């Protein structure tokens, strides 16, 4: 049943005074010209209506808690409920960001430990927790690279090299930092094209942004060569940690030669995706970039945990958030990491990789085409449907929608763009073999249906609250907000 807009439940004069102070205090002492004449149009609904509406809306979502969600690059693993419970404990939830350090030692202690643990799993010299998502971590990283070059008088180093397989945030970040983006191709075996890399390196090179394992789902085997080349050219290496889950506890970006790195805690460390966020894009830096790390950072002085700010870090690139970033998300990651311990972290990468390779092998056995069949999958892998598309006219999007009808969220589609008709599939370590097998069955069923009755696949999805939506109309006839007079 279609759920109306909350505004459609609204009736003028309905009040929910149990949530607001009982009486309206006066604002008469304020000048009339700063006050609002007409009240904003917000729904006037009862608490029951609110609860019913949003409960019903929630039921229209696919989510990890309801469905297998193998969305490549997103690491949709189980989000432990206890992490939320701890972050929402009143003592943590009610702490004001400007509360004095002496009333925050417990919280700061957790943050300090988190920094230490993140250093341990990345091999970096320092970690700053403040970036609020991967993209902001990238911004911090590229800004630090620039600050480093500028401090060395290298004002001409403004080029950031990015493989064509890179996530969109990488080039977008480089631009935001005032850099120029230079794209290099990926070889047919999934590794970076070293010749191409050599040809773009030079005195204009600020650095390179790499994801490793990369977004095509393989570990970059030439990483040490790449690091040597870039460093020789005077550039620095940025590690996009979106795929850290694949190598957690088994290899350290610091050892690979990276100078700066971000980690998506909402991927590897299982903080919730929340239908879009919040995340956390903590950054780690090598010794030479340490002076530039964004503040605040948690330090320790005379057995007390303290904030290190611009005072202690005069060369910092500065602040990225009004306070210290997504503290509650950091707490969730702290809980998760403390529960895993070192052994648990190794298991994360072990089983994420096992699941990905198993699923890839099963799909290949079933006749699906892997984009890099000769390679080991990392924690994810790519299937290209291009032959099926050519044969049947059913495309990757049709496949994705047909999966929804079979109770599976679709993998990432059409990314990375260099592989045609691709599905980037990331099962994560928290799914069972049985679930993976069921997914393979669904894939086979859809393929068979595509061969026998392609139009039927193109009709999908049939079981979702709405069927396929008109995106063109959405963009052409913009309807971005409800208004009364419609």
């Amino acid at each position, binding site marked *: 049943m279609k759920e109306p*807009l909350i505004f459609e439940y609204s009736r003028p004069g309905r009040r*929910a005074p149990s949530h*607001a*102070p009982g009486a309206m*205090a006066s604002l008469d002492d304020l000048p009339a010209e700063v006050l*609002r004449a007409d009240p904003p149009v*917000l729904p*006037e*609904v009862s608490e029951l209506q609110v609860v019913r509406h949003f409960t019903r809306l929630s039921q*229209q*979502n*696919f989510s990890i808690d309801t469905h297998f969600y193998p969305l490549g690059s997103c690491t*949709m693993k189980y989000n432990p409920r206890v992490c939320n419970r701890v972050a929402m404990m009143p003592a*943590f*939830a009610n*702490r004001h960001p*400007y*509360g004095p350090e002496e*009333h925050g*030692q*417990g*919280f700061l*202690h957790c943050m300090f430990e988190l920094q230490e643990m993140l250093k341990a*799993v990345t091999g970096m010299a320092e970690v700053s927790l403040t970036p*609020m*998502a*991967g993209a902001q971590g*990238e911004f911090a990283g590229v800004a630090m690279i620039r600050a480093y070059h500028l401090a060395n008088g290298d004002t001409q180093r403004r080029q950031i090299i990015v493989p064509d397989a890179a996530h*969109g945030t990488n080039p*977008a970040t480089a631009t*935001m930092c005032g850099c120029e983006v230079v794209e290099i191709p990926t070889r047919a075996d999934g590794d970076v094209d070293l010749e191409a890399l050599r040809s773009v390196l030079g005195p204009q090179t600020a650095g390179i942004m790499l994801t490793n394992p990369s977004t095509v789902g393989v570990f970059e085997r030439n990483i040490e060569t790449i690091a040597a080349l870039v460093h020789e050219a005077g550039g620095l290496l940025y590690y996009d940690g979106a795929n850290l889950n694949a190598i957690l506890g088994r*290899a350290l970006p610091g050892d690979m030669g990276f100078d700066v790195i971000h980690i998506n805690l909402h991927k590897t460390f*299982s903080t919730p995706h*929340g*239908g*879009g966020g*919040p995340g956390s894009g903590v950054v780690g830096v090598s010794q030479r970039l340490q002076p530039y790390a*964004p503040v605040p950072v948690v330090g320790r002085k005379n057995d007390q945990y303290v904030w290190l700010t611009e005072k202690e870090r005069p060369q910092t690139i500065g602040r*990225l*958030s*009004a306070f*210290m*970033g997504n503290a509650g*998300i950091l707490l969730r990651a702290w809980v998760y990491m*403390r529960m895993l*311990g*070192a052994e*648990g*972290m190794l298991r994360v990468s072990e*089983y994420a*990789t096992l699941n990905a390779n198993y699923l890839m092998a099963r799909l290949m056995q079933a006749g699906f085409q892997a984009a890099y069949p000769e390679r080991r999958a990392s924690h994810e892998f790519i299937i290209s449907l291009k032959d099926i598309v050519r044969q049947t006219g059913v495309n990757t999007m049709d496949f994705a929608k047909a999966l929804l009808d079979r109770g599976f969220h679709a993998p990432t589609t059409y990314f990375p763009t260099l592989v045609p008709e691709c599905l980037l599939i990331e099962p994560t370590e928290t799914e*069972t*073999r049985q679930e993976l097998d069921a997914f393979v069955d669904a894939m086979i069923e859809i393929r068979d249906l595509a061969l026998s009755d392609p139009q039927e696949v193109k009709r999908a*999805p049939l079981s*979702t*609250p709405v069927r396929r*939506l008109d*995106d063109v109309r*959405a963009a052409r006839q913009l309807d*971005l907000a409800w208004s009364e007079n419609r």
Partner: protein
Amino acid sequence: MPFIPHTEEDVAAMLELIGVKTTDELFQEIPANLRIAGPDGIPAGLTEAEVSQLAQQRAAGDGDVVSFIGAGAYEHYIPAAVWDLATRGEFYSAYTPYQAEASQGTLQLIYEYQSMMTSLTGLDVSNASLYDGASAYAEACLMAVRANRKSGSRRILTTGAMHPVYRAVANTILSNQGIELVDLPVAGGVTDLGALAAMDGEDFAAVSVQQPGFLGTLEAVDDITDRAHAAGRLVIAVCNPLLLAALKPPGSWGESGADIACGEGQPLGIPLSSGGPYFGYMTCSKSLVRQMPGRIVGRTVDVEDRPGFTLTLQAREQHIRRSKATSNICTNQGLMVTAATIYMSLLGSEGLRRIAARCHANTRQLVTLLSGIDGVSLLYDSYFHEAVICLDRPVAPVLEALSRRGILGGYDLSEHYPELGNALLVCATEARSAQEIAAYGACMQEVLAKTQVA
């Protein structure tokens, strides 16, 4: 194995199918010299009970305090329904709604959120959130520079009572693109309109105004807006969205309204939580929609002509436009928006206004009480729900003494506004009871009596 469901039998069968003997073989492509046996210095794993107990101990150590700090993050009562609903697994553990048909819950909710924010701010279009108020402000500045093609200036004029950290964050972000923020001087807690007038001849892409300002006072937003537009500048409004239930919305400022509004969404049902996660909101006039950063949800129809919701105008975004995107933002603060939408639905316009008015009344009560104490005076007469008081001695030791008594007395302005002397920014939201306000008064009296005038 916490969270990992594999049995030994599963593993054996899976390895066999893959054609390897051990899981270690799966990592062979990692050069041997890069492989490690495990991370160093990570403490052993804890059970859920153990980690809960540890967290409890740590949290308990932080003590129970009554806070009169605002300064950009505000303690408000959050109805139980808000987080009960927002943390339902279907909201909590979903991704960005790329597969629209499998995400109508989140998508419709964001559309409702966008509708509420446009109404609160009086503007046409809202995005689905940015990281926080400060970074939203930085994005607004970038957007204004992109949007104001006529001007072409890479400078932005900022009222001096703008949150100092917002200015710092904007600076971190804008300086990389060579965009400059120019601060206006403060007079009487608000923008010095004379100094503003003196700038009339200069080219700026935009003027940004915080209302109420960081010092709690109310700016002459109509004047500032009209003057900016006359000079070919866009207007960026930075507002506490909760207070917009009582204050004139940016869309109604001056003759034609502000062009972009942004700010910190935290007051709308988000716990203080040491500073985050909160969310930045941003709304703008229709003409600027293609310069908007971040996700936007639109209403459309499905193949059966039923209404439905989908991400739209994605061509602005990094995953499509890559280096030419309006912003690099990808993950935003969705869960916080979920909570805020539920919060606004529960409170309604009347409820929000009551809270705003009560915050004002409580702060007035507090300020009256405090300024009656010897050695304490009120700096600016007009304020909304924060006010600056001045002490006859340095603020820090007084705050420390109060804190030892369980009272967080406010935000010390000496770092960012040394010119104000021993100034302290205090705030009493609706969450502060009359007794707590009285207790603050009594404590302040005691502390001032016991400590020395420096």
